[in-house]
């Protein structure tokens, strides 16, 4: 049902005896589909329409001067100006919050705008931020190139090394950041440790859970303060919108909301409508992404031309145990290395793929494939790439929701013998 508080905000059940069973039970009782369709939406909508209208208005009218005074003095909840809010934005924010088990959500123009929104509202000159080093390269770039200009110091430590993260903490540390799973290595962070480290030192923690989505992982249940997503990916799901979202408690989001109203990295009414529409099939799509990701990863692992597969659903993955204990599924992203291949031989594999299209991004219904070296790290120094684990023979595939056999057959012909 649409009352999310009772169903989705329930604290995570601790069951150390048999965590996988607990996860199975949790998934059995989850009814994300009903929330995906209805949460955040009024039962009776404007014009009695079954779907919410797209409000393109940039501004909202007041009946008279007294209404403005009442609005300000009584703190009335209503629209004022498009940068501060939009009825469609409220719908999709509430829907995302329900799915995430968060009090509130804040929608942005893109995933980067969402992450930057948190950075810029939590951090001041002199503050420090620590993040695990496997991450989206633009997040790293923002910290080192831009936050640095505002007097914020960034430390990156090896992914999953909590001792190193603890060592890097000092009295100026204000924010701990990680992705989980990380991109493109799909390392999975122990979120309980991560959140507890923040709590111990009273430092805010943020997880970019774009690759997991709330279908597979809900970091707030582990005590994480801010959850960020590039909603362009699985949440929108159709490769046809740009959006970002930050979720958390009302209190934690208050300064972030304020800054968004000032700086204005807001989403567009048409995009928020498409996002809300995309979320209606969220559960079905995620089931397919998970199934395709797992099957493709298993196929690749058994293929003689593949040196290594990074996928948290594989027992061979370093973080498989923690992934199994805290995730419901492992998503559609699969990263792998071609055996004895230089960059060109690797590119040849990518070029032979017929179904997945060569493009950056991930999480849409259409499968996408890319070679990180060319797509994201072409201009990076070789020693940096080595340090970040971006190898010449690495391929990243975002499995869409196509037929599993079709995807495997296609990869098989692309790999050759």
């Amino acid at each position: 049902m649409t009352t999310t508080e009772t169903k989705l905000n329930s604290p995570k059940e601790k069951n150390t005896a048999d965590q996988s069973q607990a996860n199975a039970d949790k998934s059995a009782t989850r009814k994300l589909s009903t929330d995906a369709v209805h949460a955040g939406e009024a039962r009776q909508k404007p014009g009695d329409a079954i779907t919410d209208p797209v409000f393109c208005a940039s501004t909202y009218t007041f009946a008279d001067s007294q209404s403005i005074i009442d609005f300000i003095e009584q703190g009335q909840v209503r629209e004022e100006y498009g940068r501060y809010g939009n009825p469609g934005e409220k719908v999709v924010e509430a829907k995302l919050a329900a799915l995430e088990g968060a009090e509130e959500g804040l929608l942005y123009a893109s995933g980067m705008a969402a992450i930057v929104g948190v950075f810029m509202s939590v951090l001041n000159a002199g503050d420090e931020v620590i993040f695990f080093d496997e991450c989206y390269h633009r997040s790293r770039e923002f910290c080192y190139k831009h936050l640095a200009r505002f007097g914020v110091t960034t430390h990156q430590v090896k992914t999953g090394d909590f001792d190193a993260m603890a060592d890097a903490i000092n009295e100026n540390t204000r924010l701990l950041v990680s992705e989980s799973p990380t991109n493109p290595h799909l390392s999975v962070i122990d979120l309980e440790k991560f959140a507890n480290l923040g709590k111990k030192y009273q430092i805010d923690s943020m997880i970019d859970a774009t690759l997991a989505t709330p279908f597979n992982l809900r970091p707030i249940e582990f005590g994480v303060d801010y959850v960020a997503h590039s909603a362009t990916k699985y949440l929108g799901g159709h490769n046809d919108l740009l959006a970002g979202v930050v979720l958390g408690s009302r209190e934690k989001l208050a300064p972030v909301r304020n800054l968004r109203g000032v700086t204005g990295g807001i989403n567009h009414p048409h995009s928020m409508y498409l996002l809300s529409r995309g979320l209606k099939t969220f559960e079905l799509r995620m089931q397919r992404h998970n199934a395709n990701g797992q099957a493709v990863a298993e196929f690749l692992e058994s293929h003689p031309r593949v040196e290594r597969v990074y996928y948290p659903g594989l027992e061979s993955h370093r973080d498989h145990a923690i992934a199994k204990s805290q995730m419901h599924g492992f998503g559609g992203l699969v990263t792998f290395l071609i055996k004895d291949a230089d960059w060109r031989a690797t590119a040849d594999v990518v070029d032979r793929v017929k179904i997945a299209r060569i493009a950056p991004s991930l999480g849409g219904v259409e499968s996408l494939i890319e070679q990180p070296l060319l797509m994201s790290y072409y201009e990076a120094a070789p020693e940096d790439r080595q340090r970040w684990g971006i190898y010449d023979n690495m391929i990243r595939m975002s499995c869409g929701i196509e037929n599993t056999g079709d995807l495997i057959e296609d990869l098989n012909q692309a790999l050759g013998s």
Partner: protein
Amino acid sequence: MKFRTRAIHVGNAPDKETGAVVQPIHMASTFVMPAAGEPTGYDYSRSGNPTRTAVEVTIAELEEGCAALALASGMSATHAAMLLLESGDHVLAGTDIYGGTYRLLHNILNRSGVAVTLADSTELAKFEAAIRPETKMIWIESPGNPLMSVTDIAAVAEIAKKHGVLLGVDNTLASPVLTRPLTLGADIVMHSATKYLSGHSDVLGGALVVKDQELFDRLYFGVNATGAVMSPMSCFLTTRGIKTLELRVLEQSRTTMKLAEFLVEHPLVAKVNYPGLAIHPGHEIAKRQMTGGFGAMLSFELDGNFEQAKKLVESTKLFQLAVSLGAVESLIEQPASMSHASYAAEDRAAHGISDGLVRLSVGLEHVDDLKNDLEKAIAIATGESKVS
């Protein structure tokens, strides 16, 4: 490639100029010609539009036809098919058809001198006997609406062939996921794309699909002349919806099967119409011509009167009271007062649409939530307080 993969990729090649993985929405009403009278493939949007071509190619592919037309609504699609007829021609249609089709046949086509007979298409001998020398078109729905009757499409196609009559099938309720009438011998497949194809209650659209180019050319001539084409935004949203078509229809069918089983056992439900139930008269045919499920529509008769059925449809919290069907949101309605109100009262009675009949369009919500909702509403409507 399998259905699901084709639904995502066929008709949706990345944009040639920009590489955009999702094609642009061409809002243009007209297209510039390099030289007078030498269009580059598109000239005026009523005659053709790249965004519309994309969705037409996808729909044709999924119905295993050679070409498709995307129209402004399901009714404009049916109307476009009927434009093949001339004064003096006769249409034989099934009895369990959409109310709007009934109205088109009886109150619009009659003005053009086209005669209509309705006959039960599940009774093949009687149905065939209704064919006249001037019959030019047979029009059926399977499953039918709202009684979920199942017509043997292949058998009717044989009859149509024998008499040299075109067979049109309104495949809206089954969708190409479950049934592909062209492969069973039908000549024309019609869809209200408003329903499962777009699937999100935010598009009005229709489609016609054929397997014969000459027939397509005749249909295209009619559509281009009369102009009820699908808008570019609706084409885009339909294309987007089709990418999850198979997931939605299979999941919605699974949920509907469970609801049908629940309702059959309910003491206050007199009858359940769902082809997935073994007790349904068309179950054996449905098993043959529907693959993967039996659809996400069902109707049932409340053990009660008009007022009680009205109360029921007004009492659900999750099922919303609205006509239409086939979307992610579950809907409920009373055919006698809503979708089939355009039938004459005596025809309604003759065709088994009782006052206590309730029709469900099952969406993507969780089956337990939907079951609870129905159980409570039945209790409220019948004054029965026992709610388990």
